[in-house]
């Protein structure tokens, strides 16, 4: 059980930079998710942690120990691969026993530990099967079993549940988190699925094009995105963005959009003054923070027209046209509107985010 400390790490593939000057700390026994789209450098980071790839520059520490030059077998890590990477010619038992055999654990102990891990993962009935005879979920459990039999210092997960079907994925999210809490092992989990990161991790590192965009708890990432990219990547449906211009009027600071005016509150005004915000900004608001009512003159501030309505059962997603922009709104289920029906909407001003149009950095 060690902290994992990544200090100014770079990774090049030829002239392509995969990871740029990454600094990350995963505290002892905590669960860190590295979140980002494909090609953002998250898998390269994990592979450098595992020792499967060299570190181009920088240092990685497990606790006090610098591991840059250690081969995987000496790092005391266990990794679960995206495609499971089971030994196809070995049974589930032998797959799980392999790490122990390679470390010279005696037979009785291997037997005991494999069976305990298999029981925990509910695959004890499958120990004699070969990977070919397993379903996706069972293969994945076997791969996890192979990782946990050994009580390593660090767990590394590379999108372990990406290939399972949606229902099983939801189930495994809970199981993995439970497992990590029970074993109390430092865990680094790479995923492109924000739901996995949000639901399981203590901390999330959001990466984009090799650069760490934001590091924080799931709620920090969701409620206070550091920049426009993070704001747009995290959240489902994604955040709405409107190009606005800030104007100082008698009623305070107003964000002016061709089709609406939104008065900001005093706290927001103070932040903008403190940060000397430029007048051109990008306004971001999540679909849940917009109120919606069907019908013209239905009482909310801003008139708009319905583009399409999607029924989700309990909720519905309404897309409305506001000037030249389109907004996604998530609301409780109500009457399904027709195309081009009029409606009114209102923004929850306290949940608005403003981003610089030039740098994309969030003012708040």
């Amino acid at each position, binding site marked *: 059980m060690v902290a994992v400390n990544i200090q100014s790490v770079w990774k090049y593939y030829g002239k392509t930079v995969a990871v740029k000057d990454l600094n990350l700390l995963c505290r002892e026994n905590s669960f860190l998710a590295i979140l980002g789209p494909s090609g953002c450098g998250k898998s390269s980071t994990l592979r450098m942690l595992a*020792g499967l790839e060299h570190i181009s520059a920088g240092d990685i520490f497990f606790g006090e120990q610098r591991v840059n030059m250690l081969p995987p077998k000496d790092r005391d*890590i266990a*990794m679960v691969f995206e495609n*499971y990477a089971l030994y*196809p*010619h070995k049974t589930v038992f032998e797959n799980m026993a392999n790490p122990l055999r*390679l470390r010279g654990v005696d037979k009785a102990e291997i037997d005991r530990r494999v069976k305990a891990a298999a029981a925990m993962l509910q695959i004890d009935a499958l120990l004699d099967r*070969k990977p070919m005879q397993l379903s996706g979920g069972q293969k994945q459990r076997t791969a996890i079993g*192979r990782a946990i039999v050994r009580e390593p210092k660090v767990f*590394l997960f590379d999108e372990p549940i990406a290939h399972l079907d949606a229902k099983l994925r939801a189930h495994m999210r809970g199981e993995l988190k439970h497992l990590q809490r029970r074993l109390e092992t430092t865990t680094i989990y790479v995923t492109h699925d924000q739901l996995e990161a949000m639901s399981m991790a203590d901390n999330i590192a959001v990466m984009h094009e090799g650069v760490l965009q934001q590091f924080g708890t799931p709620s920090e990432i969701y409620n206070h995105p550091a920049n426009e990219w993070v704001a747009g990547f995290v959240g489902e449906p994604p955040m709405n963005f409107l190009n606005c211009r800030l104007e100082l009027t008698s009623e305070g600071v107003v964000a002016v959009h061709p089709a609406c005016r939104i008065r900001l509150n005093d706290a927001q005004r103070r932040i903008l003054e403190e940060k000397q915000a430029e007048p051109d900004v990008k306004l971001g608001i999540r679909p849940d923070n917009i109120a919606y009512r069907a019908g013209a003159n239905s009482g909310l501030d801003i008139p708009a027209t319905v583009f399409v309505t999607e029924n989700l059962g309990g909720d519905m997603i309404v897309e409305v046209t506001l000037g030249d922009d389109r907004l996604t709104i998530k609301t409780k289920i109500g009457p399904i509107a027709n195309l081009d029906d009029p409606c009114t909407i209102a923004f929850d001003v306290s949940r608005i985010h403003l981003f610089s149009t030039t740098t994309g950095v969030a003012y708040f």
Partner: protein
Amino acid sequence: MASREIAQYPSSTRRVLSVATIIFIAFYLLWTLLPFLIMFLSSFKDLLDAFQLPAPGDWGGVSLLFTFEPTTKHFENLFVDLNFGTYLGNSLIASLGSAAVSVVLGSFAAYALSRFDFRGKNDLFFWIISTRMAPVVAVLVPLYAIFRSLDLIGTLPGLILAYTTFNLPFAIWILKGFFDNVPYAVEEAAMCDGATRLQALRMILPLVAPGIGAFLVLCVLFGWNDYLFASIIGSGGAKTLPPATIGLVQPQNIQWGSIMAAGVVTTVPMLFLGLLIRRYLVAGLTMGAVRE
């Protein structure tokens, strides 16, 4: 991987085609198997019986081919008087030895070419296979000169080396394909489990075993069937079955019976090897290692 059922619907062309296919296959089998039948039967016949041939068009006379008094005297002649036991041994040692050397060295080279990136890798790979592009005859003379100065002419190590020269590039080329098919993730998993690279390689060897087995047969066949090297580099001390068989053709006397028996002796071991290895040849390669 798994073969899929292909929906086919009857049509008149298809019916004609399927009948034509059967006729073609029947003729093809007759064409390829008949010589073996004649060889096999003749090796057990006395010379007089062997030349009892039906006249052209006399279909009833076919029974002549099967009416004879079986005798093993040709085989006795080969093994007792003509020393064919030694030649059979030489053939086995030369072809199996070369196949073993080629497969071991070839596996390591193919693994390296499959897994590592280094400067000039593609050129090296092409150079390896380009050594097989020249016909054997073209390199025979220089090879003979080299082998003679190394005192390898007429020795089994010389013959093994000569076959390996030709088997190895082929082995590297084919085995690389097999290694390429094994997902690297399996080795990475092994290394994370605590294996060294060599242990990881050993871990995936069972996955390439069908390929190695199949290739072993090809190497053995090359050495076993070779005449050119055997007659020139192996001449004298390392005579193998093909040159020994040719030796039965003498200006004053062609020993047909013994030649037929030698043909049987040469064919049967490879026939059994083929049957033995057949199961391997069709085995799946990765057997569900990785989610497809």
